[in-house]
């Protein structure tokens, strides 16, 4: 037994690097079309395509990691992965703790949806939002009653079941859900602009990596390939660069 223990401890310490160029990309995998786990169990979506292309241009070797939303920043700063690429809006609050690359999506409007029959104004009712999102803070400050859920999908279920009167989330996440609900769900109120576009989150101490990705995003913006990707995943109405 002792031998095994010593070997295990020894192994933990003598273990040496092979090549240090791998960048680990953290994403949530529950927010289509930004990122989701497809039917084969792989990470898929706009950010998968984007991330792979960025890594390709920057000459990096990238590895994808799924991590739940509520612990996605703590796991970045403690070094479990090197970037967050999970539809994360750039906010001043987050910017205090981590750095963001330039935005790779225009500031995306958030919106409320409600069930088809309701005529009530969304902002006085019970509004569901995912925990620790900019929408959750917005709802809490707006005076509505906030109901928090761990995943975005649970917020939609809660609305369908009549638990809440409205859901607030990124419009591009809600749009396909509304479109496929056969009139069961609809947008209510206008678009709300909170947050400053979506960027990749990177540790503050990792400025080299930030510059690398900034340059790669620049080159994708310049040759229009970013716009092509946005149109592929978000449709024609999405705002382009």
């Amino acid at each position: 037994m002792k031998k095994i223990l010593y070997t295990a401890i020894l192994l933990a310490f003598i273990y040496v690097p092979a090549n240090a160029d791998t960048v680990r990309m953290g994403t949530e995998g529950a927010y289509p079309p930004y990122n989701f786990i497809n039917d084969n169990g792989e990470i898929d979506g706009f950010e998968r395509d984007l991330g792979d292309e960025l890594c390709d241009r920057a000459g990096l070797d990238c590895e994808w990691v799924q991590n739940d939303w509520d612990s996605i920043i703590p796991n970045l700063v403690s070094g479990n992965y090197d970037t967050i690429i999970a539809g994360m809006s750039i906010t001043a609050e987050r910017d205090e703790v981590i750095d963001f690359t330039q935005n790779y999506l225009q500031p995306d409007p958030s919106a409320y949806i409600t069930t088809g029959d309701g005529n009530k104004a969304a902002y006085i009712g019970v509004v569901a939002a995912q925990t620790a999102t900019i929408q959750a803070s917005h709802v809490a400050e707006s005076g509505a009653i906030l109901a928090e859920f761990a995943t975005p999908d649970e917020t939609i279920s809660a609305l369908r079941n009549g638990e809440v009167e409205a859901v607030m989330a990124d419009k591009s996440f809600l749009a396909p859900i509304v479109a496929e609900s056969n009139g069961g769900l609809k947008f209510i109120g206008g678009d709300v602009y909170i947050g400053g576009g979506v960027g990749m989150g990177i540790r503050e101490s990792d400025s080299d990596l930030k510059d690398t990705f900034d340059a790669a995003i620049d080159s994708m913006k310049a040759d229009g390939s970013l716009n092509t990707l946005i149109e592929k995943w978000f449709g024609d109405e999405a705002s382009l660069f």
Partner: protein
Amino acid sequence: MFEYCADPDILSTFEWFSCYLTNGKHLLFYKSFGLVLLLLIITAPLAILLGLLAAVGVKSKIFLLRLFSKAYANIVRGIPDIIFFLFIPITIDQLIEFSRHKIKCPEITDSVWQGSDFIVCSAAKLPLNSDPQWIHDIYGFLLAVLSFAIVYGAFAANTFYGAMNSVPPSQIETGKSFGMSRKQLYLSVIFPQMWRYALPGLSNLWMLLIKSTPLLFLLGIQDVVYWARELGGSKTSIFQYPHPDWRVWYFLSLLVFYLLLTKISELILNRLSKKIYIPI
């Protein structure tokens, strides 16, 4: 899985389900059941070992060791396991990386904590950034095993402590009169006798351990709960198999899995306790 699965939109209900339930995501779901069993099998002996060490520690003659063992056994049990799981793995992880950093990169004198960042040199990372994902997965799993073992080791410590005290004093006195050393006394009298007294407590502990495994997903491991949530959530047509919210069915299947697991364990443990004479 099947050849007709290429275009799920045109399938009949039965075929649709046969394809749906065998797609890549479901296979990962089925594998995660194995993961739970693996965790149980590895954690149980480790927790027993920790428990034994702590129980012997409580009876030790060295004051500090006694204090430490007592503190470990009592503090851990006073805190809900879920709170432990939320910060023990990250603590262990940072401790290991911190010591590796000190050993491997002594030339870097900057603090490893800069603002909210925890930075160690790239050679000190465990696993290394360049390692394939499966090594990261195994490392994460081992952290989970260790966390479970630490929590349930504290419970086991108490069971063993009680069991050691139940060994009839006359047997220990006899051992002493033979001139046995402390070590001999433990190895050839107390340990062999103790097991019979500890078995009921350990059986309960095993059940407790089984019922705490759904918390694995808190440790960032894609376990049964993670996949049940992921698969059960409603899916739009961006997915090959769109469906409404089916979480209730997935969770009911988890319920059945756990009922089976505890029932089978109970049957086996009952047989075991019938074979071994358990003095009350």
